[in-house]
């Protein structure tokens, strides 16, 4: 037997392994230490992983014959994911009294899920990617149904059932792609597609389509988005926060990898994706208009944002990758920030009525100001980060010729202003009617300020980060 020696480079996997080890510790240690300490441990672990990711920048290491890569794209996504997870961890601390997230396994499962997301972002092999995808999904299914309330259970069950349905579609798609190309490795697939012997283009097209649907489900693109509002509303707020940023970002990382690398030369998925994006933009934005619950409104808003990032998937990889990463980075800060504010203001996990924000501007200036910041950025008002992100995406899509979609995106994001501005108007321009609870402690406040600063800095000096991302270009 000719055993091929395994090619393992532990350095390349350092961030991933750090998170995984932290997760294992977070699983075991609760027997011995307090939950607060676990939270601290998780935060430290994530920070170490963050440092490791930054340290690995530009090294371009890879492992397992290229199945796992720590290139800048993966590292960039890793950073975004770690930041998203960190925000969730910190947010969870102040609402511990409200319960729901301070069960000790919370951190463990969260960290496992993070490791799954990182695997998803780094994998260059369909099966590894699938495993990352599933680790992430399973973790989030559990987290969604973490509370023994009817809403949380409903969220968990819906997510799980529909999620496994979508996974099955995804796996079938992977099978078909393998059938067409005989490969699982992303670059290998592309090579196979380009090779003259390639004959199964229609099988590849259907496989690509199934993979597209599986990922569209996970990133919440219409018409596969319907779980999103319900799950986002029903899940504990911190979990929703994590889902809306890290899970979405990781799913997009895989999405971009598969379609930007492996299947970029397969035809047939582009038109359906355009259709999905158009539908997503309209449905996400229009549905958000009439929501009375802030949490649900943000859920629909997150559907809409999936549409924007979807444009980057559609665009040519050279611009799509970096713009999507930049967008998701900002999106992580602003959306997680908005959820963090929502989190400390709600009396339970069901979110809060937008009307009850009235007068918040004077009663809780910091929370109101930061929420305003995040909402404006989500709406894409310059000079905040959200605008730059949106601009980069539009630009990428336009330069690949998807002009109609860009116009649609612009129009719908004008519509989105209506629902983003409403809370702001209520907070500042209306007298207070409801007394909202305020769970915010020092950690949340610092977190909010850091997020707000990040959103502003990414808007004002985008090149500080985007310049680095230039290297992501393939």
């Amino acid at each position, binding site marked *: 037997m000719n055993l091929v020696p395994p090619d393992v480079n532990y350095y390349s996997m350092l961030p991933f392994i750090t998170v995984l080890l932290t997760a294992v510790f977070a*699983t*075991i240690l609760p027997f011995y230490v307090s939950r607060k300490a676990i939270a601290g441990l998780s935060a430290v672990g994530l920070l170490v992983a963050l440092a490791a990711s930054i340290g690995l920048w530009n090294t371009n290491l890879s492992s397992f014959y290229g199945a796992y890569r720590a290139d800048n794209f993966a590292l960039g996504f890793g950073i975004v994911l770690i930041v998203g997870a960190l925000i969730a961890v910190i947010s969870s601390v102040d609402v511990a009294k409200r319960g729901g997230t301070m069960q000790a396994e919370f951190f463990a499962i969260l960290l*496992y899920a993070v490791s799954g997301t990182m695997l998803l972002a780094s994998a260059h092999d369909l099966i590894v990617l699938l495993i990352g995808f599933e*680790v992430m999904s399973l973790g989030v299914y559990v987290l969604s149904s973490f509370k023994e309330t009817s809403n949380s259970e409903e969220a968990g069950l819906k997510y799980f059932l529909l999620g496994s349905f979508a996974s099955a579609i995804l796996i079938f798609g992977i099978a078909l792609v393998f059938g067409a190309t005989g490969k699982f490795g992303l670059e290998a697939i592309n090579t196979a597609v380009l090779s003259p012997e390639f004959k199964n283009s229609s099988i590849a097209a259907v496989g690509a389509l199934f993979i597209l649907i599986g990922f569209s489900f996970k990133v919440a693109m219409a018409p596969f988005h319907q779980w999103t509002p319900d799950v986002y509303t029903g899940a504990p707020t911190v979990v929703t926060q994590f889902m809306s940023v890290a899970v979405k970002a990781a799913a997009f990382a895989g999405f971009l990898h598969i379609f930007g690398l492996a299947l970029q030369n397969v035809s047939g998925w582009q038109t359906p994706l355009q259709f999905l994006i158009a539908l997503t933009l309209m449905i996400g934005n229009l549905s958000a208009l009439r929501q009375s619950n802030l949490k649900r409104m943000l859920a629909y808003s997150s559907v809409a944002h999936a549409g924007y990032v979807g444009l980057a998937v559609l665009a040519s990889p050279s611009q799509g990758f970096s713009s999507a990463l930049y967008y998701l980075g900002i999106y992580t800060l602003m959306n997680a920030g908005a959820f963090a504010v929502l989190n400390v203001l709600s009396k339970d996990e069901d979110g809060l009525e937008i009307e009850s924000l009235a007068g918040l501007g004077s009663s809780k200036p910091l929370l109101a100001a930061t929420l305003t910041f995040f909402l404006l950025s989500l709406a894409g008002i310059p000079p905040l980060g959200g605008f730059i992100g949106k601009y980069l995406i539009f630009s990428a899509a336009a330069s690949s010729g998807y002009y109609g979609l860009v116009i649609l995106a612009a129009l719908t994001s004008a519509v989105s202003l209506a629902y983003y501005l409403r809370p702001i108007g209520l907070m500042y321009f209306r007298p207070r009617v409801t007394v909202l609870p305020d769970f915010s402690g020092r950690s949340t406040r610092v977190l909010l300020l850091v997020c707000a600063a990040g959103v502003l800095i990414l808007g004002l000096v985008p090149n500080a980060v985007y310049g680095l991302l230039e290297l992501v270009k393939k």
Partner: protein
Amino acid sequence: MVVFVILAVLAIAGALGTITFKSGIYSALSLVGTLLTLAMMYVTLHAQFLASVQVMVYAGAIMVLFLFVIMLLNESQMSGADPLPWVQPVAIAGGIVMAAALAFTAFQFKAPKNLETATAALQGGTPGVIGETLFTKFLLPFEAVSILLLIAVVGAVSLVHRQPAHNEALETTSEHATDDAYADEVSSSNPAKVVA
């Protein structure tokens, strides 16, 4: 070909049974039938190891778990009218379209290699050759899948641990929180399971 047709008919029959039987137990047993048929099919496809795994893990362990849960929940027949009567025809129509389209695509498949030589390369799909692949080319997925199992275990346990809806009681207990974070939540749960 005859074998294939028989097996295919059986598999489809089982699948149809799975989706038509009202009772969960019959439904699950039909699926077991399909799974066993597929295992036989794997043998015809030179995947001996998979065939055995299919029988042991899938038809055996997993489906037994299903049956166990079905019985645990002691599910009665669905009561009351279907609130979504339109779903069934729509689903069937959609399913037929999908099946037709997929089957149509399937027949466009052009074999990349000569089937005989290709089959020979499989070496029968014995555990040995599969193991070799898993520990060399497929090491990463093989390792990574362990995380999947880990999270499955931790997740399943934590689902049992979930917090009650009204957490006033919890808040009072959490004031007496000891270092042992698991202990003060649900005292009945067995920590040993977690480590496993």
